[in-house]
Each structure stands twice: as C-alpha cells, then as structure tokens.
C-alpha cells in the first residue's frame, strides 16, 4: 500500500485492503515483533468532536508501535476556539508530528486538510462522510468471521448519516458481495453513495425497509444506531425504532452462522441477550481496532514497506 493519506475507503483497491488486513493479522499474532518499530515517531491527534473508541485505539496503536502521541485536546481548550481555521491547525501540528489523525464534524474536512500537509493524514471521521479506518477494522472482523467473498451482508439502521456505513459499502465493492441496506425511508443511503455504488459494475445492492425478508440469507448483519435526534418528530422515531432492534426472537429465522456487528456505541439496537451468543462480534470488532490501526500506521509511516 502506497498512499500519502487515508481519506476515504474509495481510494483503496482490493490489494490495498488485503495488505492492511494481512499486516494487521501478523501484528495481532505477534505484537512484540513491532513493539519498537516506530520508537521515535509521534502521532498527532486532532479530534474536533468527541470520540472515545477511535481516539483511544489510535493512541494505543501508536504506543504499541513504540511511538508517542500529541493531543490537541478538546476544541474548547484549543486555538480553534479563537477562530483558527482547520487549514492553519493542521499546518501547525504537522510540525510536531510524523502523522496526523483527524476527526471533524464537517464533511470533506480530511480531503481539504490533506492539501495543506506533507505528513500522512488519516481521516477518523468527517461528519456524515467517511470513516475509512473503522472500515478496515470492520473488514478485518468480517474476514475473520465470514470471509470477504461470496458474502451476503445486511447493513441496517441510520444509513443516511452513518459514515461507517458509507465507507464500508464502498470498500465491499472490491469483493464478491451482495449488499442489502435496511432502513426507514427517511434514513436511506444518500444518493451520492448510491450513485457511487451503481458505478461499480459487479456490485449488487438492494434497499429494504424491513429486515425479515432478507435476514435468512445474511452472512453478516451490520447494525448502526437509529439516531433519535435525526427525526423531527418523536412519533416518527417511535414508529420505526422498534423495527430495527435485534433480540433472540428477531433471529429465529437467521442462519446459525450469522455474524452481528455494530460500530458501537449501541443504545438499544441489539439486546444484551445477544451478547453471549455466537452471533455477537461487536466487542471483538472494537478490539480489532488496535491491530488494524497499528497496521495502517505502520504502513503509512514506513511508506508502504512491510519488511521488519
């Protein structure tokens, strides 16, 4: 993999993805082998909106590679509060760090920011846009549980604003997959994403409002939170919320091998009774964030060279 930045999963080929996932598997098998691989490297964390998992897993990943992190801190305590532009912020912080991780509430923030820096920049979420490093750990988890070819996946919940969904669906077009999108009509995939998916000759996508008809055919069900705050009317939310909750009764018609994933945090989309079943992969998915982000950082900081 030879990229200066990771902005969107659309920029990744199948070979790129497999390089990252293979490297992550090597690291997961033997983390000690890379314990000092980037001993002098510094990672800059620029999180313009709250994040727990993504931020902590990047921090853990960098430290496990022997490096260190510098953290911009909260927006309230930073120069952003004084009106500094994002372009200026990244130009300043690149002088302190060898690579940058950016989380920002505005769509296109990472695409713009990378025009102003020379060090590798990783998009850790830009509004309702993309979240490609989440996608890499999603793919890693899918590969471990169900494989990435001949795969039927259901992606359910808030597909309109769900950046993890957008990134995952793009990345899956590199593989032999059938993608089923399940959501209320008001939270369907943005037309931009549908447009892009239809540009891929071999991609098969279908949109549904109900899970029942498609559930038996699924190898993987990727659940996202239906965000109450997205609905202008509480009654409209209540009408659909119950339709998109998974419990043991819901899964009666599912395959025994169904893998259930969720980028977390969940609220009530997946009942706790699912946690102890063989279906649940969401905590494993979250834990995979560390080796996958170690692999990404290693490849970017090494200019794509994987040799020890």
């Amino acid at each position, binding site marked *: 993999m030879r990229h200066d930045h990771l902005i969107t999963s659309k920029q990744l080929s199948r070979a790129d993805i497999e390089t990252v996932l293979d490297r992550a598997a090597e690291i997961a098998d033997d983390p000690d082998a890379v314990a000092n691989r980037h001993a002098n490297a510094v990672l800059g964390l620029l999180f313009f909106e709250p994040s727990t998992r993504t931020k902590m897993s990047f921090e853990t990943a960098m430290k496990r590679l022997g490096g260190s992190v510098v953290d911009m801190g909260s927006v309230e305590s930073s120069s952003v509060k004084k009106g500094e*532009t*994002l*372009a200026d912020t990244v130009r300043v912080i690149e002088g302190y760090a060898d690579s940058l991780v950016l989380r920002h509430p505005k769509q*296109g923030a990472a695409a*713009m920011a990378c025009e102003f820096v020379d060090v590798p920049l990783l998009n850790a979420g*830009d*509004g309702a*846009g993309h979240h490609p490093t989440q996608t890499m750990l999603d793919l890693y988890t899918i590969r471990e549980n169900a494989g990435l070819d001949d795969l039927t996946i259901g992606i359910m919940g808030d597909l309109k604003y769900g950046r993890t969904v957008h990134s995952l669906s793009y990345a899956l077009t590199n593989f032999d997959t059938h993608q089923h999108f399940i959501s209320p009509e008001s939270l369907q995939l943005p037309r*931009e994403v549908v447009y892009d998916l239809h540009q891929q000759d071999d991609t098969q996508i279908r949109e549904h409002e109900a899970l029942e008809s498609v559930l038996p055919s699924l190898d993987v069900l990727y659940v996202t939170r239906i965000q109450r705050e997205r609905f202008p009317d509480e009654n409209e939310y209540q009408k659909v919320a119950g339709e998109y909750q998974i419990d043991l009764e819901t899964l009666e018609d599912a395959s025994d091998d169904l893998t259930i994933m969720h980028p977390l945090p969940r609220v009530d989309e997946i009942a706790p009774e699912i946690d102890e079943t063989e279906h649940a992969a969401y905590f494993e998915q979250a834990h995979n964030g560390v080796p996958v982000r170690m692999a990404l950082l290693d490849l970017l900081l090494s200019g794509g060279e994987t040799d020890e």
Partner: protein
Amino acid sequence: MSDDHDHHDGNADHELRVSKIQDGTVIDHVRGGQALNVLAILGIDGSKGEEVSVGMNVPSDRLARKDIVKVEGRELSQDEVDVLSLIAPDASINIVRDYDVVEKHRVERPAVVEGVLSCPNADCITTDGEPVTSRFEVLDDAVRCSYCETITREGIAELIDTN
C-alpha cells in the same frame, strides 16, 4: 455549417424578435428559461448600461424551446463559457464583429470547475471559512463537490458564486 437553422435559416419572425448586434457575443441554444441565469453568470444586471437582447422560449428544432442572449460589445472568456456550459450544455457561442459571425463554437463541459460554485451542503468544510477554493467535478447531468461529494442536479445556477 450552421447548426442553428431554426434561428438563422428558416424563421425570419424569430430573427426579428432579437435584433442583430454589431460587435459582441450571441449565446444561442440556451435551454428555455435559463437566459436570466446566463446573464447572472456574466454579471450583467443592466446597472452598467450594457446593451443586451434576450429571447426567451422561442421555438427551436433542437431544444423545442430555447433562449437566446445577445451581448453587445463583449466577447466571452473561456472561463465564462465553461461556467455557462453547466446551465446551458447545448449552447453555441457566436462571436460577432461588424455584424458578421467570425467565430462559432459549441460550449464544452469541463471536467472540473474551480472557484465558480458554492457547495449547497451546509455541513461541507468549504462553507466554513477555510482558505480553500471550491472545486466541483462536472458529471453528465450534475456537479459534485470534490470535498463533501454532494451531488447537485437541480438549481446549479443558484450555486454560482457571484462574489
């Protein structure tokens, strides 16, 4: 050579509705109803005394109904033609000198337009006061912000940054 026979060759009535100009540009085969947007793109609002003739919704073989804009004393730049192509993809540009058409060409849609349109997505980083020039990929029937990737099909003229 002329492909606008609906205007020049066959129908004198339509010719009369929009008088000939001496020097300047005739923008023909503008989609019906877009003439005022064409003027907006060119920054023409009449306040500077520009001499402009406009024909709107006149019959056309190619477009059924078309608009025509004639601007006296002004030859369009390539940048202006590029932008025009977004709302008038079928337009032809005729440069007129001393009452004769000395140049005639169809507009060509560029692959990308920069610094011309503003993104309609309020959550796009380009709307946030950053030192960045807007950039849009030109699709067959739409434009797409290169940053937030929002696709706009309707109302492209309203995105034109007139500042």
